């Protein structure tokens, strides 16, 4: 037993610099993809909620396609598809783009859900006292929606952080790929993935904690 622990410790110590390097790339992917996804979701929001069907229709179709197909296949489509069109983006860029596109499609529904969860009477009341649609949205609906959105937003960001592992499938040397190569190329064993799991757990726990702290602060302001 002590032998086993000592061996595992030596193994992990030798791999430590590589694991940290992989972890940093994972964090990089997440920090690149998260803002893109948040903005992309916002960009989709107006056409998604448009009353004219020829605008909302295609948006709904795109959002549903992204939400009902695996992220892995979407990343493959971008990575293997763009070169056919004459574009050669890096693996990193393809991964980030794939994650941003799918999570943007999930986020637009999150935004929409939060806005629609604010009672219609709030709309009516704001309009009745003479506010324009934009003013009602800005001063009445959005502040209430913002409070309801932080919980689902935090969950989505945690899923996003975990989804960065899929970028290993197109060869980016992030945390998961580092573990796979360590096992395939050296004598490392399954324990490596326990260590990797702990890295991810730390990342998602921090994101969850930050989002919850944010929720408390926003809730305290109203």
């Amino acid at each position, binding site marked *: 037993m002590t032998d086993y622990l000592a061996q595992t410790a030596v193994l992990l110590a030798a791999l430590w610099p590589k694991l940290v390097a992989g972890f940093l790339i994972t964090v990089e992917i997440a920090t690149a993809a998260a803002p893109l996804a948040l903005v992309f979701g916002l960009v989709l929001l107006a056409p998604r909620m448009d009353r004219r069907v020829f605008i909302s229709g295609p948006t709904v179709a795109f959002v549903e396609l992204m*939400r009902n197909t695996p992220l892995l296949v979407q990343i493959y*489509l971008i990575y293997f598809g763009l070169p056919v069109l004459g574009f050669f983006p890096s693996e990193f860029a393809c991964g980030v783009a794939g994650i941003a596109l799918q999570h943007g499609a999930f986020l637009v529904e999150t935004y929409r859900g939060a806005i629609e969860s604010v009672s219609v009477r709030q709309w009516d009341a704001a309009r009745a006292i003479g506010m324009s649609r934009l003013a009602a949205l800005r001063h009445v609906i959005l502040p209430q929606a913002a409070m309801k959105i932080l919980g689902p937003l935090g969950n989505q960001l945690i899923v996003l952080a975990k989804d960065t592992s*899929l970028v290993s499938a197109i060869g980016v040397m992030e945390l998961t790929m580092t573990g796979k190569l360590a096992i395939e190329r050296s004598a490392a064993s399954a324990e490596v993935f326990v260590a990797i799991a702990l890295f991810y757990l730390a990342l998602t726990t921090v994101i969850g904690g930050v989002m919850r702290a944010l929720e408390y602060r926003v809730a305290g302001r109203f």
Partner: protein
Amino acid sequence: MINVLVTNLPYLLRGALVTLWLALAVVSLGTLLGTGLGILATGGSRVLRAVVTVYIFALRGIPVLVVMFLGYYAFPALGVRVNAYVAVGVAQIVYVGAFTAEIVRSAILSVHPGQAAAARSLGMRRGAILRAVLLPQARRIAVAPLLNNALTAVKQTSYASVVGAWELTYAAREIVERTLASFQIFLGVMAIYFIICYPLSLLARWYEKRLVVPH
């Protein structure tokens, strides 16, 4: 242009069949496991509750792909010889189970505590309270999240291809390597996944709408 997709469609459909079987096994066994654990997480034993809570917390914070690699490499390390499907399937069942357990746990806890108190004051035992009072009410709340959970699980089966199990996504990659028709094949595969997933999606939304009580 579309010819590549048509000629390779039988191969892709064979992959889709494997995906369906994998999804069926993962969703049914994962939901079964998670429901049991979710009920235990609201039960009386403090030790069991702690164990399930740690299980839920740990699994939900880790990418499913990492759990699948862990399963793929851990079985041989423990001296158990299994094929890729079993390794990947068990990993996904354990993963889906954690999410299911959290849904079931919070659905049971969302039933007003007065309900259990009233049942207890009538002299009902713990098992009877669970079966006749808590679970029927919790089920209403849990159905839509469980369907969304199943939807995610179906999409996750595609990650099995990364670990080396042959299914729809794996088949697609083989064809693309041979024909270089990446757009036709991957878009076709997306269409197949969409056909499998969209009904689940619609069903989940229908249940969500049914739950909303108008203001």
